[in-house]
């Protein structure tokens, strides 16, 4: 079992990873999901023992990575974001070097190299210089390196980037096979990949964990609460107060100014969506507010993901939400940072 407790990383004054904790159970594939710059690679580098953490603790099968790094690292196979290959080496030379630094016994090295070459299907390039390989092959050579010595904990940072669709399928199959007697954590920003391969996902954004759960649970939690998008023309404060008052509206999530006096509201509903939608529209029309567009989100992992990532910090009141609208269309990211400042 791998435990990560209160992991925090500062780059200077910049907080890259904020107090994250989770555990990975035996025979589990954990997906690590987040947009670019969310802190995925930083976290993985810390778990692999490359970057020291500012505070927190990573325990790999009982050994603390900071206190007993040699013992902990013996159980880790790590494929970083950029495959760590030497362009001037041949594939077998490179793997033999890696087997050496991973302290694979001399007598087993040849067999080990053969095994990983076969697993990644790169036997055909074993005699080539790495500099002459395509990106997909380099990626797979990097992956092969991570499996050398059969470590029980495999960390893969975006392992399918740069592979062609065929190779992606093969690599995913391989990851699933690894599950039998390994613990795998792998990061990605491709949702279909995560939902196909992983048992559980950790969703992270701006260094914070947004959710940790199985994919089924995430989807079902969010399917019970539908999001309704409604665009109206007219007084925004009047529309906002009507929306807030309507029964079945759980929460008014955001208001965006679309220009030309048109405002887009995102509303979280509770209960029978159609009924609430009809009532809401009737109320708005009665108050001479024109409805430009109405639609509801179908819940799927993508929406769950976008919702979790983009969900603004909870607003205190309706007034706060209304204040937030700036004349031109606003970027949610920008408003987020402003608040943090």
């Amino acid at each position, binding site marked *: 079992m791998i435990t990560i407790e209160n992991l925090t990383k500062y*780059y*200077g004054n*910049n907080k*890259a990873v904020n107090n994250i904790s989770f555990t990975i159970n035996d025979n589990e594939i954990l997906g690590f999901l987040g947009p670019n710059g969310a802190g995925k690679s930083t976290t993985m*580098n810390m778990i*692999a*023992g*490359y*970057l*020291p953490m500012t505070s927190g603790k990573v325990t790999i099968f009982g050994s603390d990575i900071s206190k007993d*790094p*040699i*013992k902990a*690292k*013996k159980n*880790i196979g*790590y494929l*970083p974001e*950029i*495959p*760590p*290959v*030497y*362009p*001037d*080496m041949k594939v077998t*030379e490179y793997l033999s*070097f*890696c087997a*050496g*630094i*991973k*302290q694979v016994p001399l007598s087993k090295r040849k067999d080990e190299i053969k095994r990983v070459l076969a697993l990644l299907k790169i036997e055909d390039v074993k005699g080539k210089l790495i500099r002459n390989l395509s990106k997909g092959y380099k990626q797979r050579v990097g992956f092969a*390196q991570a499996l050398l010595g059969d470590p029980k904990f495999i960390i893969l940072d975006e392992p399918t980037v740069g592979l062609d669709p065929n190779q992606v399928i093969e690599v995913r199959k391989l990851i699933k096979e690894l599950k039998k007697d390994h613990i795998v954590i792998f990061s990605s920003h491709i949702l279909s990949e995560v939902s196909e391969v992983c048992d559980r996902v950790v969703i992270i954004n701006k260094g914070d964990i947004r959710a940790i759960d199985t994919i089924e649970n995430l989807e079902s939690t969010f399917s019970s609460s539908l999001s309704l998008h409604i665009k109206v023309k007219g007084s925004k404060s009047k529309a906002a107060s009507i929306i807030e008052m309507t029964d079945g509206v759980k929460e008014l999530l955001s208001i965006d100014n679309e220009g030309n006096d048109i405002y887009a509201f995102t509303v979280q509903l509770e209960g029978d969506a159609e009924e609430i939608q009809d009532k809401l529209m009737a109320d708005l029309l009665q108050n001479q507010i024109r409805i430009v567009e109405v639609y509801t989100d179908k819940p799927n992992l993508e929406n769950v993901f976008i919702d979790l990532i983009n969900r603004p910090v909870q607003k205190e009141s309706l007034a706060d939400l209304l204040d937030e609208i700036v004349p031109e269309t606003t970027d949610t990211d920008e408003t987020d940072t402003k608040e943090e400042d």
Partner: protein
Amino acid sequence: MFSIFKKELQSFFYTPFAYALASLFMLLFTYMFATSIAKLETSNRLMFSFTEIFYDLLFFFIFLIPIITMRSFADERKLGTEVLLMSSPLSVGKIVIGKYLANITVFLFMMLGSVFFPIVTEMNGKVVVSQLICAYIGFFAWGAMFIALGMLISSLTESPITAAIIGEIVMFADLFIDDFSGTAFISQYPKLQSGLNAFAAQPRFAYFSQGFIRLSDLVFFASAIIVFIAWTYISIEKRRWNRG
């Protein structure tokens, strides 16, 4: 540690790198050797000194040593392979020492080429072997120190070229410390002068080339090597902490 050593040697000897360096060194030595012999014809002395050749070669070596060491850590960082080394069950100390030993081996390989000249001379004349051995020991100690220094500089940057240029500047400065401290201006401040002299490596090499092996010189070189290696270790660890 042996894996690192082996890999470093491969990167020197499986590429033209080490051979190009060694032939450049041979070329320089040949030039010095030939001019020394040419001088014999104009003077009425019938002897010349290999140790003098070594002494003059130090100047050229300032340019060769940073080229050996420039890639040590800067290249790993540039390629992204530093992650591989740091996440493997190898301590940073072992990585540094493995690389240091490989660089020393390349240096020895270059020195080996120069043995050719005394052998040729011995075949046609007489060589003072004891003095020559002293010069070799001194030359080795001097090179070993500058290799450690070059590695330290390589660990501070991400670009091998920058590492080489900074290395050359620093080593050049060290070569001229004793000339500088001997100037009239510095002589006015004896404390400063002796302070500067303490860092000068060249006069210490001069003792070796004259056939003296002094304990103080050996201690100087050995402690400088230890300081630079330890500093390299610290600089790598520090970079990991501050990286961002």
